[in-house]
């Protein structure tokens, strides 16, 4: 039985290949680019000077600069689903708000293995896709649900210092 892997939310990010990306909606009239993507049945550009109602799906910049960051030292309440198995200890995770070239800031968890000590305002991060939690599939096996995360970009030579 192969373990399957599905995005935790449909249509918000790509998962194929080595370079996953967030999917945004770019207004065909004013080029304002939104994330999360704008659903087909709510297709109104939010720029008050724009009447646009159609959008192109675009991949957002995979790298950005940290606007700010924090962590969750206590397990968040539902509907958050903890990644650890029943009875295992909760492991805190970091969160970052990241400025992209499209002029918007996108929140995300920080990649596994990195904490607030690895982050600074203005620091560069790159998008990765990792397991958020797992759940029972229809056939009874476990399947992963994945999410986008921000991973600090470490320059060559810095890695050894970590």
């Amino acid at each position, binding site marked *: 039985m192969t373990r399957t892997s599905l995005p*935790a*939310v449909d249509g918000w990010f790509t998962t194929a290949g080595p370079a996953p990306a967030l999917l945004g909606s770019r*207004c065909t009239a*004013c*080029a*304002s*680019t*939104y*994330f*999360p993507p704008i*659903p087909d049945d709510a297709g109104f550009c*939010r*720029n*008050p*000077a724009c009447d646009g109602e159609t959008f192109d799906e675009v991949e957002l910049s995979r790298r950005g600069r940290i*606007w*700010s*960051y*924090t*962590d*969750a*030292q*206590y*397990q*968040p*309440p*539902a*509907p*958050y*689903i903890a990644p650890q198995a029943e009875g295992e200890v909760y492991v805190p*995770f970091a*969160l970052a*708000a990241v400025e992209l*070239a*499209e*002029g*918007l*800031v*996108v*929140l*995300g*968890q920080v990649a596994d293995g990195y904490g*607030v000590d690895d982050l*600074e*305002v*203005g620091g560069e991060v790159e998008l990765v896709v990792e397991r*958020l939690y797992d759940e029972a599939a229809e056939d009874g096996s476990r399947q992963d649900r994945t*999410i986008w995360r921000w991973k600090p970009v470490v320059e060559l030579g810095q890695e050894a210092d970590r």
Partner: protein
Amino acid sequence: MSSQQVAVAGVGMHPWGKWGKNFVTYGVHAARAALADAGIPWGDVDYIVGGETVRNGYGGYVAGATFAQALGWNGARVATSYAACATGAQAIDTARSRILAGLCEVALVVGADTTPKGFLAPNAGERWGDPDWLRFRLLGMTNPAYFALYARRRMDLYGATSEDFAQVKVKNAKHGLSNPNARYRKEVAAADVLASAVVCDPLHLLDICATSDGAAAVVLCSAEYAARLGLATPVRVAAVSTVTPTFPNTVMDMPMLSTDPSAAVGTPEHTFKESIGLAAYEEAGISPEDVDVAEVYDLSTALELDWIEDLGLCQRGEAETLLRAGETTIGGRIPVNPSGGLACFGEAVPAQALAQVCELTWQLRGQAGERQVEGASVGITANQGLFGHGSSVLLSR
């Protein structure tokens, strides 16, 4: 007094705490206290506005009518307001507008809440179109995590320290010591704050406000009614700002997962929080230099420092300097949160913006006792809630 300004005839509160009672009990207590303070019989009130509470069933959704029934149906016209944390200010604005339009003379505004323990979580059910649900499911992003983002920026951009944040708590704890409506009336040392558990780095447990039960009520009336009542120099509502953001809102706002995009249209001149205060100043014809006292929304200690700058009470990045010099303490140049703020109250959402107005009313009347800001004649409130809601009320006397 200008006929374009309504008078605050009376204010009243139910003490904040965790009392385990129905929100209506608190609301009626506050309403009766405000009516008694005003010396106005309930029968004279011809408009009642309730602040909606989303956690107390159907009665909470129709709070105006719920309070009207509990006080005894008197035929008053009714409204219910909801604007997240700005609910109370929006309710005041609704009442004030009707008075200014000449459609009523005396309005009672009431907000009350009964809150659960712990983190505020979203409503039940799978709601894939609701950012307030999605931020928990996809990111585990709690309210304190948003507060922590703002706190961290103060540190990295302006050199704020955890000690500064702790000193905000120390100051507010001292302010609230003698406030009979405050829930926490105990001195706190900076070391206590720094020794409390980190919830969301860099914020400690004692940097973050609790959630509380509580109620506040305000009686507003026309200038003519105030004159008949014999109020020669009442506290007046000089402005109520309930502006929404201007696109693009480029500051990461709770409960959103992203900001508006600025690439196509450029960044705005003012942030949303700055625009809330600016609209109040403009409406009142009052400038930040005229303000004697401020009640701002310290959901976290660091957020109080943000608000001081957002309201133009000092330059951007200088709030820590003001704090360290004791200028925001009672007796300083611009005392902030003389009530003790959310640090001493905890948040009771639909009542909180009204509680700010109650405190400023007592301050401007010179009735604030041990926490009195001497000679205060102009006061400003500020708060921000979810989904583009925020408020600022300017009172003057």
